[in-house]
């Protein structure tokens, strides 16, 4: 059997202050995946899942980090923040449910589709969260 190649890793700090640059990491990752010759469908899934996650971290957690690793089987996206944590994951997963403040909604965000979209576009999603400590979302997209 062919040995699994060493995964490639990308790390990004997601700035919590800046709405206009939110989604910047997903743009870079999209370009990298295209250079690897992955299919547009796979790239789209990664891009949307990451974009939604980045926006979430900016809205709710004052930013965080995004770590992406790519091996020959799957792409893993780990989004970690030191935000307030999610009190009720079941509720947060419901389409249209949002705790975003009014000022954020007026920017067109906070439609309550972030987490549902992240789940929809990834093949596997795991949420670890602790109130007052932070949230880590791990998403996997199989190649």
């Amino acid at each position: 059997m062919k040995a699994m190649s060493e995964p490639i890793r990308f790390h990004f700090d997601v700035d919590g202050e800046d709405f206009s640059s939110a989604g910047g990491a997903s743009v870079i990752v999209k370009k990298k995946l295209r250079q690897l010759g992955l299919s547009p469908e796979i790239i789209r899934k990664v891009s949307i899942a990451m974009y939604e996650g980045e926006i979430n971290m900016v809205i709710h957690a004052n930013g965080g980090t995004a770590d992406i690793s790519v091996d020959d089987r799957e792409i893993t996206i780990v989004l970690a923040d030191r935000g307030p944590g999610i009190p009720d994951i079941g509720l947060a997963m419901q389409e249209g449910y949002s705790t975003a403040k009014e000022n954020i909604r007026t920017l067109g965000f906070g439609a309550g589709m972030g987490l549902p979209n992240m789940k929809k576009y990834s093949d596997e999603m795991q949420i670890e969260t602790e109130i007052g400590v932070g949230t880590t979302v791990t998403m996997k997209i199989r190649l």
Partner: protein
Amino acid sequence: MATYKHSVSLEAEKCRGCTTCLKRCPTEAIRIRDGRAVINAERCIDCGECIKVCPYKAKKATHDSLSCIKNYKYSVALPAPSLYGQFENMPGIGRIIRGLRDLGFDDVYEVACAAELVSAYTRLYLQREDVKKPVISSACPTISRMISTNYPFLCENIMPILPPVDIAAYLAREKAKEEHPELSDEDIGIVFISPCPAKVSYVKNGFAGNRNYIDAVLSVRDVYFALLDVMKARQDEPSESTDAGIVGIGWATTGGEAKALFNERYLAADGIENCIEVLEQLDNSDLEGIDFIELNACAGGCVGGAMTVANPYVTQAKLQSLKQCLPVSPNRPASPWIPDQFFNKKTVEYQPYSALSDDKAEAMRMMGDIEAVMETLPKIDCGSCGAPTCMAFAEDIVKGETTADECTVNMRMLFHRYLEQRKEQSYLDRLNPLSKKEEDGKE
């Protein structure tokens, strides 16, 4: 992709390898090699940014020359509306139309007239149930090419109706044949006067599908200077009038196309960087509440094209005063449906840039190497190595297109360390012209 004909090119002898264009190219298509700029044909989208910023005028747009009209028994000028706003103290558009005839054209068909038809057709198109929204304008070829190379899922959002210039060319040819039945198709030359190199590439590559109705493309700049002479000679004579209205001429500037839809659910952006941001957002979300997107690669819209003469905003102001006494939209479609020949036969296809390697495992290995090389680079994107960013430089190294010693920052550090080891302080002193002066003063 290798057969794609570009309008933007370089006059190598004028280029000094200054890196100005390198930093402004939106697709990172330019590298400096052996002290000269080199354009990567696969990546270039003919936006003309490099032409606009080059301090040595080494970048140029290839287009046809005015003398080409001699090749045809009957030639028709298709002026883009941006041409009208180039002149100082222009009393009316009619004078420009007559000037074009005086230059030797047998007839003039204004692109602005066809633009009014496209506005009417777009309103019809947006009412269809089966349309994927938001619909993206098909008018700017740079944007269409940007989408075809980078946004596979947005290709079908591009409006399939032909841009005004193609419809103008079709109608101009039909008109010529009707008025002069003795002419054959080869006798007629349809000559577009374009504000930008992207439209030249668009025509030369036959983007419009099966049939290309345009025979030659001139630059607004060339025609402007030629017109100055002929218009001066007939300054005091009464002139013709324009057939276009406020809507058609409005297409020359950003928002003109979108406003003509009489539907506020539109987004209009200009400047290639802004357009890319909008496309990125649209690629990840659906920009709710927007039915139509007008994107212009040039700041100000077509008036900002690299083959114009005047400043885009000055042009815009002049167009405003020229169109104020005109009717809103005198050109109306003959039918309440969109004629078949006005649809683009060829839809925009996804044509991505080449991957690092056709072999996935090899591409992965190269990507790993790129990240490793990147770690050794200063990350200040100075461009001295000939690549626009340190990341692009790392990619070029791994692809074997350049070598790590082109990094002037790393080389300087190496050089300093070398001199320090050899305790050759005198070499460093020699580099400082002031320390030499001080010595001279002492003597």
